[in-house]
């Protein structure tokens, strides 16, 4: 019988995935929020069903529509029983969402130092309606948050692409521009692949670049409307 087992932590190392989702009123048009909800649900379901992992995939969703709030607190994907669809309303307080994300990553009670470095995904279709500068810098330069892998997607032609570009730190996958609902799905499929590839590898702390599936690979043709944003 093992004498050392009693000293060993009986939970897997976490790999946190934090989604910052724009849920402002403009997301309610052209099926954007519906596409986002569907893509998020699929990502969570894939994470929950993944085996052969070297980490416990944990997901949190922070929304910013009217106010910024934690829609889904950080939790193991396989423990998420249902995902409440995100409503779309109000302005775009992206700065407050950055603040929530930075606080989450710096919190060592929530994300212990044995965790693999987090992945932060920013999705937005518009311009921030609050001051993003201080919280953006806190997220970019925080002792722990600066180490996160960051992916970004701008939805439609009104997205603040320069800010999203500054946010993303994957050199091989700069900010992704979604022109229709299918692109939202492709982006989250790529994020899902990147995370699961990482978590299966012998080096789960190394970022895996986003590889966007081709349009034909991403979904059957009747799954999403072709309407451009």
């Amino acid at each position, binding site marked *: 019988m093992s*004498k050392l087992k009693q*000293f060993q932590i009986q939970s*897997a190392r976490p790999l946190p995935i934090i989604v910052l989702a724009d849920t402002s009123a403009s997301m309610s048009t052209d099926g954007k929020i519906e596409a986002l909800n569907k893509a998020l649900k699929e990502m969570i379901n894939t994470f929950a069903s993944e085996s052969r992992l070297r980490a*416990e995939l944990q997901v949190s969703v922070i929304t910013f529509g009217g106010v910024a709030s934690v829609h889904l607190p950080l939790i193991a994907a396989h423990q998420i029983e249902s995902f409440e669809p995100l409503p779309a309303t109000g302005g775009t307080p992206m700065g407050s969402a950055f603040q929530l994300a930075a606080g989450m990553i710096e919190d060592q009670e929530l*994300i212990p*130092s*044995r965790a*693999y470095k987090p992945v932060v995904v920013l999705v937005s279709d518009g311009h921030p309606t609050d001051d993003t500068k201080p919280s953006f810098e806190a997220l970019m330069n925080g002792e722990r948050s600066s180490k996160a892998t960051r992916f970004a997607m701008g939805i439609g032609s009104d997205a603040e692409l320069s800010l999203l570009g500054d946010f993303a730190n994957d050199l091989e996958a700069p900010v992704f521009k979604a022109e229709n609902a299918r692109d939202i799905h492709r982006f989250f499929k790529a994020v899902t692949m990147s995370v699961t590839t990482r978590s299966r*590898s012998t080096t789960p*702390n190394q970022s895996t670049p986003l590889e966007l599936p081709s349009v034909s690979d991403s979904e059957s043709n009747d799954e999403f409307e072709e309407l451009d944003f």
Partner: protein
Amino acid sequence: MRFAATGSSVVGPAHQQDNRPNQDAVLVQGMRKGWCVAVCDGLGSRQLSHKGSQLAANLIRSTIRCLGADDFSAKAISLRLQKDWLDALNQCPSPYETTSLWASVDDYGQVKGGQVGDGLLLVRSAGRFVVVTPEHSGFGNQTQTLSQAKLSDWSFVETTLSQVGDGVLLMTDGISDDLIPEQLEPFFDAVYRQLKRTNKRRCKAWLNQELAEWSTPLHGDDKSIAGIFRTE
């Protein structure tokens, strides 16, 4: 005054799955006047890190022999190790990156040790247990390496094993990241007690089995541990 040393290293499930070599190296070496031990963890992302970690472990032995632990500080030995390792790789260390934890104990119980990178260096001296490794605030598997380390990245220890049960214990992060922080001293004790009631060979076999049966869910890393204890 009597000292005993032990050590073990096992390939982690992730490397077994990918048919890759153990990237850790462990050293347990008797010296003319005591013991030296080391554990080095080659970076998983580097192709030849298993060779880099083995080289570092071997150089610790030769560095201590060459300099003499009696006359040189833990800092001097660590910096000489770093220089010798870089020289041996012609100053091209990138594919060989590794962490390094080492300790030596002479026949008077004088301990010297150093650490750069992930893992844990534990010491009990005069019955007082100390975690030499500073707390790290980042994330798992993000480590400083032997080639990149500045002086400020090193941790050093110099003390005396003055009581029975004192000792020094080193381990790579494949072990240390999965230990309950409040249980480090009982863990240290468990290894000491096993070594005291068996011998180096049997203790190594016991450690091999314990590490092979590691119970943390989804663990994947290689695991290495080495220690020197005062047993009488």
